[in-house]
């Protein structure tokens, strides 16, 4: 092939490449301003889901939980766990520590299957914190009885328990659906509550989920969780009063599990209908 033809051929190839590129660009979908843009880009990422129960190390499990958070608590080693519990509780003033352990113990005790609401009332009465019951009943979904207290003990407040039953029939069985309390904000408060839970519930395993300011475990049908409350967490609570100074309050709860103890899946892929 002579030189001219070679040059012509090369030029033709270049033109074809350029033309192909032009058409490819012009057929790309227009992204219109102010149109609803589904998160397709994000959701097509493959994200490894880690089974928290079977993860080999707490670091892997925690990192999968929040992509970056690594717990400083060594759950695998018994002596390390005990040292954490001891040191964390020691950082709480004595009178508040007693309150904290009282309520953590209450949550632990009353998640047991055989524990009864009446026994809870007795326990709270024995602490002189004047429990009372608020009853919400209807003919279709039975009765919800809310146990709260008139008085508080140092460092804690807003004890709240929700029991569900079948209404006004005698000897009805009451199911604990939620029980919680709050501990005051403070530098050592979160670890203090966490340590109290580990101690009173006898938690020896890794948490199901742990991230900065939040930790949860599983016990039977219940999830146990501790959260450092933000302003948004406290907004619109129908039962508890809050003001801006309450940010950082620690909320500790046991609740009937709804979801599952698995690592959070932040970007599940879109599925075709």
């Amino acid at each position: 092939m002579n030189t001219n033809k070679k040059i012509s051929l090369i030029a033709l190839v270049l033109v074809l490449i350029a033309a192909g590129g032009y058409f490819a660009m012009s057929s790309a979908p227009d992204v219109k301003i102010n149109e609803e843009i589904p998160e397709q880009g994000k959701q097509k990422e493959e994200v490894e889901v880690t089974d928290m129960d079977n993860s080999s190390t707490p670091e892997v499990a925690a990192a999968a939980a929040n992509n970056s958070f690594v717990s400083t608590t060594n759950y695998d080693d018994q002596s390390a766990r005990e040292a954490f519990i001891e040191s964390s509780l020691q950082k709480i003033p004595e009178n508040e520590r007693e309150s904290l352990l009282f309520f953590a113990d209450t949550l632990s005790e009353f998640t047991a299957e055989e524990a009864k609401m009446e026994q809870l009332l007795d326990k709270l009465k024995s602490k002189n914190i004047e429990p009372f019951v608020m009853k919400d009943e209807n003919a279709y979904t039975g009765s919800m009885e809310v146990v709260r207290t008139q008085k508080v003990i140092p460092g804690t407040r807003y004890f709240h328990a929700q029991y569900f039953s079948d209404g006004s029939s005698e000897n009805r069985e009451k199911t604990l659906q939620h029980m919680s309390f709050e501990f005051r904000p403070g530098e050592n408060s979160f670890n203090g509550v966490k340590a109290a839970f580990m101690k009173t519930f006898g938690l020896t395993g890794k948490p199901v989920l742990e991230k900065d300011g939040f930790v949860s475990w599983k016990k039977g049908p219940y999830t146990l969780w501790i959260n450092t409350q933000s302003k948004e967490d406290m907004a619109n609570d129908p039962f508890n009063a809050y003001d801006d100074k309450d940010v950082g309050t620690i909320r500790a709860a046991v609740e009937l599990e709804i979801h599952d103890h698995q690592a959070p899946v932040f970007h599940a892929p879109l599925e075709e209908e």
Partner: protein
Amino acid sequence: MSVFAKNKIFSFFMIAGLAAPLMGAMADTAQIPLYYWDNQSGLVSASHCTTVPLEETRFKISNYFGNKSSDTENLRNRNGVRQSHLVNGSLVKAIDGARKSNYEYVEVVGVNEGSDVSTTRWFSERLDKGYLFDRSIDPIEDYVLKINSKDSDLKFPGLDEQKVDGTYWKVLADQHYLALNCSDLEKGRDYLVFHVYNKEKSEGPIARVGVYWDETNIFGSLETMKTEKAMEFLPTLRQDDRLDLVMQETELEAVEGTHSGPKTALEGEEVENTEIDEEMEVAPSPEMLTDETLNKDTDAEQAEVPVMTGVNNVVCISGSTLNVRDESLDKVLFTARKGEKIKVFQGWGDNEKETVIGGKTHKFVRVEFAEREESDQVIGWVSDEFINTKEDCAYTNGSVIERDSSTTISGIDDPKCCEFPTVKKVTHSFTSGMRRFKAGRSSGKRLHAACDLYRYKDEPIMAVAPGSVVRDRYYFYQGTYALEVRHSGGFVVRYGELTGKNVSGVSKGRSVKMGDRLGFIGVVNSGCCRPMLHFELYSGKKKGALSQPKANRFQRRSDLMDPTPYLLRWQSEKF
């Protein structure tokens, strides 16, 4: 006569000539009654107040800006996703929030009911928040608002049966707006002055009312129109829209001194606290229980545990309003109305005080009124004698206000049934993965009792059918809430993983129509999962608690149903 004297006489007549119409105008405006609006007390006389210039106001009117014409503009979230359609001419207020370029963060105060647009559940409602294109926002002074009060008893006090309903409200603004200046009102609150007209009185405004941007119940139902259109039947608007005349009145009042007369119409209504107002001796706060008190001997006969009916406390008084005081208990901060929801503070800090009045000890507690529009009148102190559950309060009737539920259905299989519960199509399929009904939980030991409908946080959720709320919000899961509705035909739905935010009018015993808002989508505090509506469906053939851990693998009442085929049908019909 000297030149000086002549000049003096000439000047006098010049000034008199110029001032006469001014004085006439001032005399007229000085006669216009002045009020301010309080969400709890209604229209309150402000005759002791003056008006002062105000540079800016948060009140604005929505419009549409774009290449095509439209009766609505999009109200979006921060990501730019359209949340609802906002009817043009709606009253909005600028509120604090994260900035977004070319947009203003607003809250809807009143939707324009004078538009021809037929609104549906995709349209913005009062108190909706979102981002509005800043070129689609008009100044409030360009419009006149017609109040369509739903309260037929709302009248201007002292104005001979003059009802608020059907009046026309106009903000006069030239180089500045006007605001109220009252010694008894909270500092930092700008009460924007509206001039109020009615068609019958053609001489000018019948009243002036100051409205604070965070207390706007009066604008809950309104129509708006451009000022030019309103001038056709309110001719005095043309001359009144000159603020310099009104400002002269303000300066004159400042020279003349303060007004006499009652400071507030509330003085006659402070029935509940007249006794407590006398001789308040504040005792030291009761000590929190300590080690010394915890273990002291209790009575051999343990007290019975009080049982109350209902789970939410309200203001329980025989009168209509209750004074809410500051921490010293000396000063009244604001008022609360009978039946208003109230929450009592507990725990660290000073939340209780005892006072001795006439030899009797009264306990005051710190409280929060969380369901208020006005965010600066939320916390204060009241006597705990006036707090009770709504059901146990002798003064709040427990009757249900039945709303029009003319769209009744015979049951879940009725062809007219039902409405998909989210505003838009779900972002993820609810028929697969962990979101589907019967998905395995806890390694298969438990089955998922719901369909998880993924959308976005704070989006409203709708009632799928007409019905009645049988249980209001309660703690459900990791910082989210649930409520229960029994729908027409008997089927029951638990709407779960909501935020705690209440929808006005939704409470236990209230009827709802198909498509009515029930609440807002929340997100669990563990962050495990996306924001969703957890949707549980029951046939209604059984009674009793919905959660029953020992009943079956769903751990639910035995009439639990698979909602999937119903949701699929409703979704295809809606979207």
